[in-house]
Every structure is written in C-alpha cells, then in structure tokens.
C-alpha cells in the first residue's frame, strides 16, 4: 500500500513540524508574557509624579496581598504616603490595564475589518463607530449634563457608537451596498455625517468647556478606574474570542467573496456579523478611551509583516502588539509634558506613523 510506504517517512517529519510549531507558540506566549509584564512595570513606575521604584513595587505587593497573612505580618515596610499608593494603585495600574485592553481590542477589530472588506485601510474608525462614540460623549459633556450620574458620558459614548453602526447598516441596506468596497464607502459617508454633527455640538457648546472634548476627539486613558475595567475585559474576551474562532473564515474572506462562498461561508452575513462584533468592541473601548487613531489601522499590518497572513496568528499577535503599543504610547503621553497630559492620539499618530515608515523601509 502506498500509504504504508509513506507512513514511516511522514510520521517523524510531521511530528517534528508539530514540535517546531509548539515550540514557536510557546516562545510567542512566553515572550509576550515577559514583554507585557515589563511594559506594565514601566507603566506603573513612571508618571507626572516621581515615586521611587522600591515604593512602587512595595505598593503593588502590598495591595495584591492586602488582608492576607503576609500583609498582616508586616512583611512590607510601608515607606510610602497614601497619596503615592493612590497614584500607583488607583491611577497608574488601572490605566495601564485599560491601555492594554483598548489597544488589543482596536487592533483585533482592525485586523478583522481589513479581512472582510479586503481594504488595507479599514480600521475601527472607518465605519463611523468612533465618530458616533465621540458624538454621544460630546452631547453629554456640553449639552445634557450628567443626567445618568457618573457613567453618563461613557454610556452615551457607547450608545452613540452603536447608533452610528446601526446607521451604517441601515444606509447600506437602503443603498443596496453589501459588497466590501461599497460598505466601506457607506461607512466613510456616515462617519463624515456623524462627525459634522459632533462639530455642530462643539460649535454650539460653551467654548470654555470644549477642552474636555479634546479627549474624545484625540483619545486618552484618564478615565480608567478599577470598577470600570470589567466592561472592556468582558467584551474583549467574548467578542475577541469570537473573531479568533472565525479565523478560518477571515482567511477565506481575504481571498475573495467568490472563494469564500465556495467554501460555504455566507459572505454578506458574515461580513455584517464581523462589523457588529467590531462595533461592539470599538464602542466599549471608545466609551472609556475616546477616539484613539492609528492602533487599529497599523498594528495588524505590523503583525502580518511578522507572522504572515493567517488570522489564527494575526489576531492574537495584533492584540499583543496593540496592547503593548498603547501602554507605551500612554507612558509617553503621561510623561512628555507632565504635569499636563498629552492626548494619546497625538502620540500614537506621531510615534506610530514614523515607526511604521521605518518598518516599511526595512522590509
């Protein structure tokens, strides 16, 4: 039998490849974890206020073991002020984690939108999602007041993002635009309309309050609080997990609608599903971080340059790079002009853009 002939030869070859793949995956996971831990450590260590490194780690260790036997034994020599503890634990730590999640979420959305639209310029802002979020936030900040309490602004931002997505879907149905490129055009059109609406709100608002709007237009992570982190985490795990589980379909979509149809993928429906899931992720991220450009657009390209086009790898690597990049950008935003905060959108655009040009030239 031919198979019997092939068997002894192919068995060790396959397992060697499998072993290599496993080793590669382990290296990625280990490297990612180390990089993440390192970046997070830097993020909690630096900021507008200088706190000695020993205090920073003392505070973190103290908080993590809070109430446990270790803490009760007085293992930690508490040498820091309560203000310093609040800065490290309640300001920097949740902020770094939020940056991680927002970066990961936006990069995954960018990667999957680029696949289903077959447009390398597709990003979370493309479909008016971010503009809708900004519109909602600006409405609350300049016009309605905090009628729903402290969560009014993120809530309205989220509702605005979903409303803009609904608008894109309605218009695409109205204009009978279900193909990839026409959907992109609808997104761009809706985005402009919603942005114009947001600018009308800014124009009508109190000029002395419009500085708060910059945050929603250029992004920032200053809203991070422990109690808010659950929302981006849940949506990232569920929606990001769904996207990853459909990696094979995303791969097929990049080849073309016809090929994908041949493979049994309901192309139009899958595209809309990806849009809606992307909108959900972006909506939640925008609600807490404002419009942060660049990450969702460029990070997937960087990931593809490094690990190739398979979305099983592109999605997790994009998530990792997106998260790391945004934490790093936030460190820069917090320290470059201290005690003032730079809008993070400026940092991602400037630093990221230059980095990407350098990367393009190198490859």
């Amino acid at each position, binding site marked *: 039998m031919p198979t019997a002939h092939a068997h002894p030869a192919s068995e060790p070859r396959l397992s060697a490849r499998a072993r290599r793949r496993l080793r590669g995956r382990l290296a990625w996971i280990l490297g990612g974890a180390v990089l993440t831990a390192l970046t997070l450590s830097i993020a909690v260590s630096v900021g507008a206020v200088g706190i000695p490194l020993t205090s920073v780690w003392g505070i973190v260790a103290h908080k993590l073991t809070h109430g446990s036997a270790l803490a009760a034994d007085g293992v930690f020599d508490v040498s820091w002020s309560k203000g310093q503890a609040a800065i490290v634990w309640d300001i920097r730590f949740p902020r770094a984690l939020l940056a991680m999640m927002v970066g990961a979420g936006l990069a995954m959305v960018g990667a999957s939108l680029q696949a289903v639209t077959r447009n390398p310029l597709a990003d979370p802002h493309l479909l008016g999602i971010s503009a809708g979020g900004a519109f909602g936030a600006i409405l609350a900040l300049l016009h309605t007041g905090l009628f729903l309490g402290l969560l009014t602004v993120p809530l309205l931002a989220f509702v605005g993002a979903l409303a803009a997505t609904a608008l894109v879907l309605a218009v695409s149905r109205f204009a009978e635009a279900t193909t990839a490129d026409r959907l992109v055009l609808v997104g761009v059109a809706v985005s402009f309309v919603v942005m114009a609406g947001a600018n009308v709100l800014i124009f009508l608002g109190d000029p002395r309050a419009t500085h708060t709007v910059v945050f929603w237009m250029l992004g920032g992570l200053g809203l991070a609080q422990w109690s808010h982190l659950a929302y981006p985490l849940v949506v990232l795990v569920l929606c990001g997990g769904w996207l990853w589980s459909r990696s094979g379909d995303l791969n097929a979509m990049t080849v073309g609608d016809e090929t994908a149809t041949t493979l049994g993928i309901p192309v139009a429906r899958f595209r809309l599903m990806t849009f809606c899931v992307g909108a959900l992720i972006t909506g939640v991220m925008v609600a807490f971080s404002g419009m942060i450009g660049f990450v969702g657009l460029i990070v997937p390209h960087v990931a593809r340059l490094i690990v190739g086009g398979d979305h099983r790898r592109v999605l997790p690597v994009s998530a990792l790079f997106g998260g790391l990049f945004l934490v790093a950008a936030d460190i820069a935003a917090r320290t470059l002009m201290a*005690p003032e*905060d730079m809008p993070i959108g400026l940092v991602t655009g400037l630093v990221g853009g230059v980095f990407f040009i350098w990367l393009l030239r190198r490859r």
Partner: protein
Amino acid sequence: MTARFSTVTQLLAAGVMAASLAPMAQAETTVESCNRSVTFDAPPQRAISNDVNLTEMMLALGLADRMVGYTGISGWKTLDPVMRAGVAELPELSAKYPSKEVLIGADADFFFAGWNYGMKVGGEVTPETLAPFDIKVYELTESCIHIGEKAKVSMDDMYNDLLNLGRIFAVEDTAKALVAGYKDELAAFAKDRAEASDPLRVFVYDSGEDTPFTAGKYAMPTALIEAAGGSNIMDDLEKSWATVTWEAVVERNPEVIVIVNYGSVTAEEKRAFMRSNPAFAEIDAVKNDRFVTLEYVEATPGPRNIRAIKTLATSFDAARTDAVSN
C-alpha cells in the same frame, strides 16, 4: 409711542451728556491694553461688552447709558436678577461670541472683551479686524497671557481694568473710589480674621474627568485664593487655564477644592465625581469634604471677585479650625 418717547429722551440725555463732557473730551486719553496703546479722542458713546464679568465691570462704573448692548452671555450662562436689572434697557446683541457684523451693525465705537472672552486669537473679531470700522477694543488684563508675556495674575489685574475703563470713559473718580472701596472692604475683612499661618493648599476644579481643567499661574482664581490666604497648588503651571494630570493633584494633596460652577455639569456633580473616585480618597480635601463652589462670574475678573475672596476665606478658616480640632 413709548418707544419714540424713550428714543427722544435718550437723544436728549446723550446731548446733555455730550455737552457736559465737552471740555474733558478735548484731552486725549491713552491706555495700555495688553501689548497695545489705545488712544481715545473722546469717551466712547456706543460701547459693547462681552461676557458676564466684563459687563458687570461696566455696570459697576455706571456706564450702562454709554452702551448699546452686550454679547456672549445667555448662550451658555444666565444673568442673575441683579445684573438683569442693570442691563434691562440693553439688548443682547449676540447670545454667544459676536461676529464682526454684529458689532458693526450695532454701530459700536468700543468693545470691551478679552482673549477667550469674546475674541479668539486668529479669529474674526480682534482689535486689528475691528480697527478699520473705528471700533476700539480694550482687552481684559487677565486674558493678555494668551497673546504675550505677562506678570502673574493678581487682584491688581481687575483693579487695573476698572481704572483703565474709568479713564477711557472719563469716570476716573468713580473708578478710583470703587477700587479704593474694594481694597478697604478686603482690608477690613482681613482684620477680623485670625492670623493665618501657612497658606492652605487649594486646587481649582473647573471641569473634565479624564484630566482636570484647572486654573494656572495666570488665571484669576490664583489671585483670589492668594488674597484669601491660600495658594493654588498649580500656580507653577505657566498657563491661564489648562489641563493637568490627576497624579499631580493627588501628589500635591490639596486641603480645599474650589469648584467653578457653570455649564451643563453642575457643581454637585463635579463634587460627586471627586468623591466617588477611589484614587482621590486620600486627598485631604476629599477626606474632610472641603469643597467650595465659585460661580463663573465670581471666578473670572470682575466686581464679584471681592465676594469670592470672602467666600474662600470663610471656608479656608473653617478648614483650618477643623485641622486644629482633629
């Protein structure tokens, strides 16, 4: 009928006034406005002021009858009854920042405004763009920082504006008396207070949740806080109004927080925000619930600064007494 009658009386009044001012009008008056010298051949007769605080300076000097209107108030703020009575006869020419047309259309000869108080750097309405239409501009001293260098803000900025307006409108005696009165009032108030030791650490919270918008070295609240025996924790910020990081606020640990009240987010909501965020729990002012609210008119340069100083001083004293009894 009544309208015509009132026009006639206004004309008559203007005539009488012009006659009585005639000898003074001979003398030219030159005042410094930010980086410019502005020369007036005669006191303006058709003035317009922008924003509540600036309009109130005009009213305090009794200049309502030299005005043809005011701008930039009802678009985002409300006039309280006192001011409403003061400008009852005058139309609001523009609810928000006026366009050039509005000022020219009202046949104005004078515009009292400031940078970010009715005028924007590079905007449509500036001293330069109004000059061809013979509309002279006097700029709010506090706002000069937006177009050039300036000394740190102090109560003198406000006094300076009143005295300059007094010279421009030939009511110098009224202006001097007013300023002297304010100074006496504050001196008398200070005498009744206990001897203050170190200045209290004070943070001005205007707005913003991701990052706080606050008053820096050149914004009026810094002067008010210092006059009341405190120091603005952000007085090293070389800006008028600016955003800072929450980290810096926590680090500098203010003992009192001053909330500026205006716009759609209420002072109570701003206070609730500060109290709800665990990162701020260890700030002295939050721990001891030491919040003071200043209305927009009180926190920007104008006659109500005097009351604002008293409000601040009272709450500072209470904070000090607390600290001692704890």
